[in-house]
């Protein structure tokens, strides 16, 4: 059995889809953030896999992943800051309650 690229891509895609599912279904904002991390991570895997399998001579995919990890960290930090802020104001981080503005 040959472990071709698709064997790596599909798990990553499933990871991404799990993230999507989590984002849409979770109530806790931090859980949503966790789902987002999954999605970002799946993207990273994709880049790495493409780099390794298709374009092994270069490092573009790897570097993208490297930077993407940094970006993810920054995003998470800021997002958590905002969420904590919300928690301070409303003592609640249920995303469903964050819908004062609509229509």
């Amino acid at each position, binding site marked *: 059995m040959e472990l071709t690229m698709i064997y790596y891509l599909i798990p990553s895609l499933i990871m*991404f889809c799990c*993230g999507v599912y989590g*984002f849409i279904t979770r109530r806790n*904002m931090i859980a*949503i*953030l966790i789902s*987002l991390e999954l*999605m*970002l991570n*799946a*993207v990273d895997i*994709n*880049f790495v896999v*493409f*780099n390794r399998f*298709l*374009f092994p001579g*270069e490092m*573009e*995919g790897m*570097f*993208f992943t490297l*930077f*993407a990890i940094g*970006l993810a960290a*920054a*995003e998470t930090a*800021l*997002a958590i*800051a*905002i*969420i904590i*802020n*919300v928690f301070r*104001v*409303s003592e609640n981080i249920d*995303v469903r309650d*964050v*819908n*004062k*503005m*609509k*229509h």
Partner: protein
Amino acid sequence: MDYSQFLAMRQEIGLLIVFLLVFLYDTFMPKKALNATAGFTTILFLLFTAASFIWGNIGDVDAFAGMYSTSGVCSMIKNILNVGVLIVLIQSCRWANGELMIMRRGEFYELLLVTLFGMYLMISARHFLLFVIGLESASLPLAAMVAFDKNRYESHEAAVKYMLTAVFSSAVFMMGLSFVYGLSGSLYFHDIALQLGSSFNPTLVVALAFVIAGVGFKLSLVPFHLWTADVYQGAPTSVTSYLSVISKGAAAFAFLVILVQCFGQFYSMVWEWMLYALIIATITIGNLFAIRQNNMKRFLAFSSISQAGYIMLGIVGCNEMGLAAMMYYILVYIFSNLAAFGVIGAIENQTGKVEMTDYNGLSRTNPWLACSMMLAMFSLAGIPPFAGFFSKFFIFTSAINQGSIAIYVLVLIALINTIISLYYYLLVVKAMYISPEEPQIATFRSACSERLGLWITVGGIVALGIVSFFYDSIMEAAAGSTIFAFVG
């Protein structure tokens, strides 16, 4: 390793210098001097804007092996954004000097400048990594800015919504990028275009859809727009005005660059039709939502969504004329929308009222504010002789330049939508001028900075169209651009 390549990035470096100066000023100056932060930043930025106009354009230069590129058009759009930011700075002086902002004044300016830097990167990036970093720089600090009104719950809610959707969007965007990378093996725009060749496949289409979604999020195209209204409504008015014009302008330009430079050869097969669908949906849905709004900021949010659809018409033509029309549209849109936000901000700062019903009879108590607002509305609606008419006309012209019957139909739909948009813009005019009810807002004198901002924007609304210099010079820059070299 040629570090002198950084010199190609004059405007970015200038902006970073401003950022650093503000940062240092804010960090090290005594508390008393902090009251002058607003003025300091504004003047500094004014100098930077002027300098950027004078020395910003260094012609077509590619740096970092094609990762970064600047050209006449790029520096032009950056200058346009600078002008917008300058107006935003002027208009936000009063708000920034307010009680609430004492602790965060400097941070506001710093974040604002960083986001502008991010937009610069979006505009000039010719490599997706740099682009993503630009995109994130342009959106993450904004999330913090949205949350600036600590006393208003809406501000926090807006920040959460913005943050979460922005990250989701960037995840989807990067997913698309990974596909593109898988197909082409490169993240350089130039290489992508070369590697992709001219054959397309489902992977590419899906990748393209994800990329469009990611950038469309910044432009708030339907259906990637849903955050817009809530965020605009919740954010402090100054931030909203910044968000609605500057970030949109940068995104539109970047969108064009990506589509044309990476996927130019798939124009007529793939993304032309995607854009048709998006434009129709964007304009129509934006308009339909705008009809019902009462909150002025939310109203302008939906109006800005439909405006984004019109901006897209400049892309769909996919030629220099469209580029020029789009940039001109952005310029005019900056002035028109900022005029409207200027009035909203002035009234909100004075009375805290942002509902359309509060504007009833405004013309009787504050005729100048009402007049500015009316001109802004006319300009947004595309009524001559105000600039909005010209920009709309040119953008339609540039779209039709493409020549197919489909584009006529598209433009017709867009034109019919202008009627709906005219309706809701006139609703504001009606509230201010026609409504017989007692005025809700007493006569007041707005702050100097607000008036200055309004004078500038109103002057722009009147002059930008009638004086052909602006369009001509934009067109000149666009005509010389090499952006469209890859269009197949």
